[in-house]
């Protein structure tokens, strides 16, 4: 290579960097750190949240609160250690303005302090641990979906209404699993014959299913998200228990991702959700239609949450003119309510929603498609149980 060519090359490269630097300098870019579970057994959840978040961004013209937005993704592999490294990098190297995306509560609890102490907002599209709802509630934390207990409180209430006298309840042994069964028991007035915590990520439930068969309860309540839910329900059906003991699950264990993998045995299963495909409002209709068209699959409640997270951030940023240093105003704008796939959502002072919870049932349509249908409302304007321990104004 001749000396001239080399010089020209260097100049061109330098000019390009300069130009791109200038271009980004013209309008400030909003950097969103998106930490989520994108591989392994929980990947379907993270991918749904991310896909829907990107869809919302497209619907908003690539801008959040008027600022061009850039999403930097990190796969936490549902591991607290991996997430910590990823979050440190997002905060220090990429200098993101805001973090969102985490699926699992034990991952969030491992990185929450890191994000809050850095003075950065975390807008949760999923994980809603009780820890951050009570005494440890934080100015920088808002959950646009629910508090962990809520969905299970709804099923507990439903089990009471249906007069199931005895219930066998199971969840993975991690913070959201404990919140789940605490929530269920809070509203279930029957007798819990056994409360089982399994290892997080366990995929073979033969031992637990044998215990259920021996205990002969009236109902089984199982909180298993992602691949755990797929395997639990499949094995429950293969053991022939579907016809013998009523299976109750939260929406997490009976949404499109689980239905796709389990198929027919899911038909008839009742579950709770704060969102449904057929909720009648223009935002939801556009979300459902475009999600199906863009990604070729039925959106789950996780997807709705991802979409709502982007809408909430957009709503909050608009109120402060894109200036995230006006923290109190940003928070107040979101907490006083934003328009979501569930209609207008309001919040408690701890940053968790006050909303309706619905009953859904998995049905098979005449064309063979298996899908969730709205069957009624379990709670109206339901808030979480910890809000009074939160000392935020």
């Amino acid at each position, binding site marked *: 290579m001749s000396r001239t060519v080399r010089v020209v090359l260097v100049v061109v490269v330098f000019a390009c960097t300069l130009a791109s630097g200038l271009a980004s300098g013209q309008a400030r870019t909003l950097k969103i750190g998106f930490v989520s579970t994108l591989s392994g*057994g929980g990947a379907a959840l993270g991918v749904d949240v991310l896909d829907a978040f990107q869809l919302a961004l497209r619907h908003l013209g690539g801008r959040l609160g008027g600022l061009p937005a850039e999403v930097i993704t990190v796969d936490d592999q549902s591991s607290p250690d991996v997430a910590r490294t990823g979050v440190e990098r997002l905060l220090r190297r990429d200098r993101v303005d805001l973090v969102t995306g985490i699926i699992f509560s034990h991952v969030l609890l491992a990185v929450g302090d890191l994000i809050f102490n850095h003075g950065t907002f975390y807008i949760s599209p999923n994980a809603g641990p009780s820890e951050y709802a009570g005494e440890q509630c934080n100015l920088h934390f808002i959950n646009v979906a629910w508090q962990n207990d809520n969905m299970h409180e709804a099923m507990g209430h439903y089990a009471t209404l249906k007069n199931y006298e005895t219930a066998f309840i199971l969840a993975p042994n991690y913070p959201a699993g404990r919140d789940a069964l605490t929530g269920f028991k809070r509203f279930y007035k029957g007798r819990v014959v056994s*409360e089982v915590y399994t290892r997080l990520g366990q995929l073979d439930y033969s031992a637990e299913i044998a215990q259920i068969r*021996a205990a002969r309860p009236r109902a089984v309540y199982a909180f298993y998200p992602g691949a755990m839910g797929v395997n639990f329900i499949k094995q429950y059906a293969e053991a022939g228990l579907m016809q013998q003991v009523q299976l109750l699950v939260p929406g997490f264990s009976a949404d499109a991702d689980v239905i796709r993998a389990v198929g027919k045995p899911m038909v008839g299963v009742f579950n709770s959700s704060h969102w449904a495909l057929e909720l009648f409002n223009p935002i939801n209709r556009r979300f459902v239609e475009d999600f199906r068209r863009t990604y070729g699959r039925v959106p789950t409640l996780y997807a709705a949450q991802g979409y709502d997270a982007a809408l909430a951030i957009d709503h909050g940023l608009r109120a402060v003119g894109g200036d995230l240093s006006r923290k109190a105003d940003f928070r107040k704008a979101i907490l006083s309510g934003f328009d979501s796939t569930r209609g207008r959502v309001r919040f408690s002072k701890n940053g968790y929603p006050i909303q309706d919870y619905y009953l859904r049932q998995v049905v098979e349509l005449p064309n063979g498609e298996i899908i969730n249908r709205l069957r009624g409302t379990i709670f109206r304007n339901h808030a979480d149980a910890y809000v009074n321990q939160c000392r935020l104004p």
Partner: protein
Amino acid sequence: MSASLVLEQLLNGLQFGLMLFLLSAGLTLVLGMMDVVNLAQGSLYMLGAYFAATLGAATGSFWAGVVGAVLATAVVALLLEVSVLRRVYGADHLTQVLATFALILMFNEGVRMIWGPQALLLSVPPELARPVALLPGLSYSAYRLAIIATGAVLAVALFLFIHRTRVGMWVRAGASNRRMAQAMGVPIRRVFTGVFVVGAALSAVAGALLGPIFAVQVGMGEEVLILAFVVIVIGGIGSVKGSLVGSLLVGVVDTAGRAFLPAAFGQLFPPEVASNLGPAVASVLIYFLMALVLFLRPQGLFPVRG
């Protein structure tokens, strides 16, 4: 606690144990004969599961997928033995661990590139996706029964092969004292290649059959690899009989721990303590078992070397 519950848990333990045996049989022979610590055995198990998933979907038959997966994994194992493992036979354990750990990373990343990071969720073949009534009041998944049957047949076949054939005798001789066997004219190198390939094929059977019970995902190999090492430490390194007994012990103890310990703690402690303690102790129970065996019989239950 009814008899049918105990029986069902025993079946669960048996099913889990037999699959662990398929995985640990190859591992124990490779470690016993050639003194090679092969961490990549778990990767072969993972490959078996992925091949079975892909071939099963392509041919439309679950069983064709299993057979194809076993053959494909055997080919990969042959290539692996010729290209990498041969070079580390004489090396010290640390070198072997480094080399085979590198293999794990490469296999994991390769699988991620080919099949993607998301777990594949397989279904049990439809003809077996139903319960079978074994006794009045005890029905058991037909698929798990099929796994038990396959595992038992393979265990018996392997046992006969090792203890009743000339090649089997060579294998035993090699595991007991490699140099002496070599001096007596046993073609150790070739026998070893065969053992490695058969061991890989058995791991692939386990991976293919367990795919629908677990999930086919990157990293599935490492989880079972640890259990397989626990098994061969309990059974005695190099002993197929030991790895069968060790597998069944680990399978039954692990299942029983998960099934009965939380309830037992529930009788002793208040519910908050029991719900924390039960699952925690159940998950480390097999390691207690291993520690106990190491304390009482440091060579394992069926020591091979004199």
